[in-house]
């Protein structure tokens, strides 16, 4: 159930951060000065200049080159790739985040599996995130956003008590900041799986929903707590609400289907599971659960077909984070 939400959370986090860099920090996003030419020799020359560190000279042409579809049509893919890489590099060195992000998104779109592109994307986006956090700490050190970032940092290091204390500070100053009770709930769960922690986390998620009734993640978390406790009816209620609040929340459909199946309500599980496999066709979990639901409702042929899809999806699934795989 996880990898997709993880990815989405990551993308959301990155998106939020990068946009934050562009808007909050107010980097000047100047209109590029129109270069004299965007023909191949000029682009090649600019790439050479970038390689020599002469970014001031190179960037106008590069920027223009990657922004023009005509240039892409005229140039080969390799030129486009090199131009985008050079643009990203120069934009970062000249502190032009919008240009850097444009180049990175171009690379993501046109070279989605290129290792170097993925590497520099990670590298530069983390760099931008770091700059944004520094700017936040410098310009608004007492803001709840700065405290929240600090708390998240503690979380990342497993320093649960310090993270919780930071979140509590935010709530002490403003009890209705959305998202903080949700975070607190996550921190509590991170401390370890126990009935007491689940109960405490549950209260935080419920508190969050009082502040922000549209928080589908909080509903999902409540559902997950119920599911782990074998409280299928509660789980079904929360996952249903999460799916209603965020119709694109694919994992909520899967979790809903799983909970219904666990409650032996296989006929009811079919709908959400069919929805999930449409949304996320390459996740074996959906096909597996749907195959079981079909089987238990007498749809043997559909079950066999779905299980075949499951096996195919599982064969393509990446190894788990804990795998010891050969290198």
């Amino acid at each position: 159930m996880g990898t997709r939400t993880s990815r989405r959370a990551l993308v959301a986090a990155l998106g939020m951060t990068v946009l934050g860099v562009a808007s909050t920090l107010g980097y000047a996003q100047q209109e590029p000065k129109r270069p004299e030419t965007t023909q191949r020799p000029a682009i090649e020359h600019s790439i050479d200049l970038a390689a020599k560190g002469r970014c001031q000279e190179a960037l106008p042409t590069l920027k223009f080159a990657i922004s023009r579809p005509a240039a892409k049509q005229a140039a080969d893919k390799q030129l486009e790739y090199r131009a985008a890489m050079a643009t990203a590099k120069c934009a970062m060195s000249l502190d032009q985040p919008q240009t850097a992000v444009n180049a990175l998104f171009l690379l993501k779109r046109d070279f989605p599996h290129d290792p170097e592109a993925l590497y520099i994307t990670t590298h530069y986006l983390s760099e931008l995130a770091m700059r944004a956090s520094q700017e936040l700490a410098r310009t608004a050190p007492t803001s709840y956003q700065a405290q929240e970032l600090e708390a998240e940092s503690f979380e990342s290091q497993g320093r649960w008590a310090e993270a919780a204390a930071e979140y509590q500070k935010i709530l002490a100053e403003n009890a209705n900041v959305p998202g903080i009770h949700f975070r607190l709930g996550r921190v509590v769960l991170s401390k370890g799986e126990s009935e007491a922690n689940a109960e405490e986390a549950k209260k935080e998620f419920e508190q969050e929903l009082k502040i922000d009734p549209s928080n589908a993640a909080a509903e999902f978390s409540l559902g997950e707590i119920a599911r782990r406790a074998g409280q299928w009816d509660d789980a079904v209620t929360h996952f249903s609400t999460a799916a209603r609040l965020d119709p694109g929340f694919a994992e909520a459909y899967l979790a809903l289907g799983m909970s219904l199946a666990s409650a032996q309500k296989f006929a009811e599980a079919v709908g959400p599971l069919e929805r999930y496999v449409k949304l996320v066709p390459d996740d074996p979990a959906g096909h597996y659960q749907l195959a079981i639901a079909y089987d238990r409702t007498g749809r043997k042929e559909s079950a066999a077909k779905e299980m075949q899809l499951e096996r195919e999806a599982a064969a393509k699934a990446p190894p788990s984070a804990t795998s010891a795989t050969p290198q």
Partner: protein
Amino acid sequence: MISRRRWLELLGLWGFGLHPGLKSLRRPRVPHPLEGPDSLPAFEEVPSSKSGISWTHVAGLSPEMYMPETVGPGCAFLDYDNDGWMDIYLVNSGPCDFYTPPDPLRNALYRNNHDGTFTDVTEKAGLAGNAYGMGVAVGDYDRDGLPDIYLTQYPHSILFHNNGDGTFTDVTAKAGVAAPGWATSAVWFDYDNNGLLDLFVCRFVDFSKAKNIYCGYGAEKKRWYCKPTAYTPMACWLFRNNGNGTFTDVSKETGISKSLAKAWGVVAADINNDGWMDLFVGNDTVPNFLFANRKGRFEEIALLAGVGLSPFGLARSGMGVDAVDYDQDGWIDLFVTNVDHEQYSLYRNNKDETFSDAAPGSGIAAATKMLSGWGVKFLDYDNDGNLDLLLSNGHPDLMVEQRLQNVGYREKLLLFQNTAKGWRNVSAECGPIFARELAGRGMALGDFDNDGSVDVLLAQNDDVPVLLRNNAGRNNHWLGVKLIGRKANIDAIGAKLSYQAGDLLRHRSEVGGGSYLSAHDPRMVLGLGQRKKIDWLEVKWPDPGGKNERFTELPVDRYITIVEGEGSWK
């Protein structure tokens, strides 16, 4: 101010590779340290100085990290000399293509001296082994009333015939059950209901020294033990007993070899109450198998039965297995242990050849989230009539602590008490042994002191075995039953018992094998709680006998023997 490193860590928290809404639960609960109770703990370690068991397992751990080094060994309780007291057999590693022991290694047979001590009789018995030992299965294949031993090894296994004079003879060649390759668990059971014990042997991957694969990381090429995804699966074996000391490999004609395995554990039980023994096999990184026995041919049904994969549709690292009717609905349920981050599964039988995982919500899934399990067995440790659950744990990779947080190489035992309404983790209340971290692997059950409290033998990898005396069962009444088949297989594998003691009605089944690489006391101990009388006991013998026999006027707090067709107990 947030550092760049911390930011990257934060990204990690948000989701690289871990489940989202679930990843916040990734750290395990740390059990409270145990405090010594005033009274005897439920399980008490019998030290080597008292038991006389001085043997140690030697894994031959090497820089090349050959997989067999880290997964053994198994162990057994068996009464090899038929004196009514459980003896102990321990399996060691040994010479093979990837290992030349610097000093000679051997398995060990310890004879029970009836006073809590044991004597090493290996040399006389001739049970030393001759290759890299893995596990053991015990069964009287020739119906002479003496338990024989099948020793699984790499690269070939051994069948030891019990001569009845304290010695055994290697009859592997004549019997035709060498099972070349890497054999792991094995089980004796009568698959064709002809009254003879047949032999199923789990095979792990296609492995040899030449096929050893490098698994590791980093510029320094730091090595770790491979996950089995790196290796090719192989078919298990099924050997039909010809009744004349020989066996026929029927793996192909019965459908067993159609399914490629990476098999660690196996248990034989009748999951659909059709009178034919089925097989549940724990596989590592390929789906588990549930071989439904269709009158002598096997249909593999695990996937749609709901016992092959995780709830997320992925194969886990299935290892130890067991089968028992834990909820007393008359249908056999299943259990499989897995590795860290996978949780173990308790599969409740839906009575239609499908199962539902009852581990979530029972406390079992949560308690096993970060553990790696091997030995597993249901037992009524307190003789209250409910079958409890004991789990032996330990991670297979010595290097795991360097690459994973909150996962240890040595792990603690777990004991769950069946309250008849649910499961209660009673590990912390049951003795200091549950606070100790062990390299747990095989685990066998047996009442070595004949007090009606089922004791435990734990095998550790590259370490000494642990013998645990059960003190809890003595607080309740019990009846121990040894079944001897006449028309049915002599070990009565597949027999079903029901008994009534006042308000207590219970059903038990004699399953074949279970746990991991290990064999158990064949006697069943029936817990009565505080009830002092059994009203009746009914035995449903497996085919070809197949009859029901009912007994009344039974004693309590002692063992009895029931021979098929005799209509009485002794």
